[in-house]
């Protein structure tokens, strides 16, 4: 049974693994926009820095949206390729991260339209995988239990409608504030908040159903 608490939001503990959130940038590191400028001036290393910063967040976002690690790798490849090809024309009308998230979301939507990958995840990646390629993180001594719970949560998230799942994944796993999500989706903040409310409620209902 999942823990229940009625105290304030601060009591809600563990956060998502560091480095996944918005392509974590250190205090001394250049911003994405600075890297774009450097690239546009012919500095090829700037692209490498960008890949180092973003490849993991892109992969994790795509995995949670498509439900398929292999599809996610394809999405990452396509996203980075589009980035490389589009950087010279990037004018900075939107923030770079906003643009990048849009690309990932659109690619994931395209792929989902072609086939229902969510079903595949429930059969493959959420199960215990031994290929060591892109497995669910194993923590502590309760590996089997952790995997089981992770699989249940993954199934519940992937069963959410796309609109709700996108908001929930961007907010929870990528730490994007609601206004930033609104910018990525091109929707009002109120709509984004409504989707999040619906997403969390649906998720709780589905988890309760899966637990029983």
């Amino acid at each position, binding site marked *: 049974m*999942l*823990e*229940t*608490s*009625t105290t304030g*939001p601060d009591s*809600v*503990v*563990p*956060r*998502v*693994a560091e*480095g996944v959130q918005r392509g974590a940038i250190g205090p001394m590191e250049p911003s994405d926009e600075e890297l774009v400028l450097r690239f546009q001036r012919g500095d*090829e290393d700037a*692209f*490498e820095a960008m*890949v*180092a910063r973003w*490849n*993991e967040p892109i*992969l*994790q976002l795509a*995995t*949670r949206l498509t439900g398929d690690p292999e599809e996610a*790798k394809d999405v990452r490849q396509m996203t*980075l*390729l589009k980035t*490389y*090809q589009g950087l010279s024309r990037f004018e900075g009308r939107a923030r770079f991260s906003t643009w990048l998230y849009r690309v990932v979301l*659109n690619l994931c*939507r*395209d792929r989902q*339209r072609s086939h229902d990958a969510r079903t595949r995840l429930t059969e493959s990646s959420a199960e215990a995988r031994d290929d060591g*390629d*892109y497995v*669910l*993180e*194993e*923590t502590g001594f309760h590996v089997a239990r952790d995997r089981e*719970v*992770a699989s249940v*949560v*993954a199934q*519940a*998230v992937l069963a959410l409608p796309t609109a709700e799942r996108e908001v*929930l994944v961007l*907010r*929870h796993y990528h730490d994007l*504030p*609601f206004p930033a999500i609104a910018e990525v989706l091109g*929707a009002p903040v109120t709509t984004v*908040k*409504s989707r*999040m*409310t619906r997403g*969390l*409620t649906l*998720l*709780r209902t589905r*988890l309760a159903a899966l637990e029983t």
Partner: protein
Amino acid sequence: MKDLTPSGSCARMREEMPAFLYCELEAEARAELEQHLTGCASCRDELAAMRDARVALDRWRLASAGDDPRVLAREIRRQAEPAVVVPAALAPRPFMPRGSHGSDGSRGRLVRLAAMVSGSAAALFLALCALSTEVQVGDGSLRLGFTLPGKHSPSTTALAPELEQHVRSIAAQEVAMREPGLRQSQEELAQRYSFMTKEEMLQEILRLSQAVDVALAENQRSWDDRLTTLRNDAVRNDIDQRRAISDIYSYIRPASTDR
């Protein structure tokens, strides 16, 4: 029977709960929600359910893929380089003899036959090279022109327009083949942006159409580049060939005069 429909106030408060859970609520709105929660058991339950869901989300963790960014970046750069694609019509076809899965004996005969054919082809090629042969393809026929050593060598520029026309027709076919796919992509995008107003959607489609035009123009440019490369290669090969023939003759002539 108890009414489970949230009142207007409750519905509004519930919309703010995710922002509350993720510490994004302004102080005033937060105070209002907390005030509401003290008097509304239904909303307290709702908030507890959302918090459960949020805690559960932390259980789905993904291990890092651990890919080397330098390798990834290199791969992307390689992919981004315009690939020289040989059109199917011009690509060499693998030798696939009928009954290639037959016995060793028949395979041996085929190998010997292939060796003889390729040997003959090589000999013919050398002969044509030595005679500075000019090959012209046109009107469904093949024309060969020979120039004896010492005479004025034929120019390869006569071949270029036909080659150019041929490559251009292949390029035009490719573009025509891709057009339906591009149109379908436009329709899909229109569906995707269904939340837009009609005017916004029309603008978006216009923007995409322009992007498609640009892509087509780039495609054409890329073919032009390939054509230039092909032409340059042909000229270079021709120069090399003449140089080789000249070398051969400078080697042969003293020997023949000795005799």
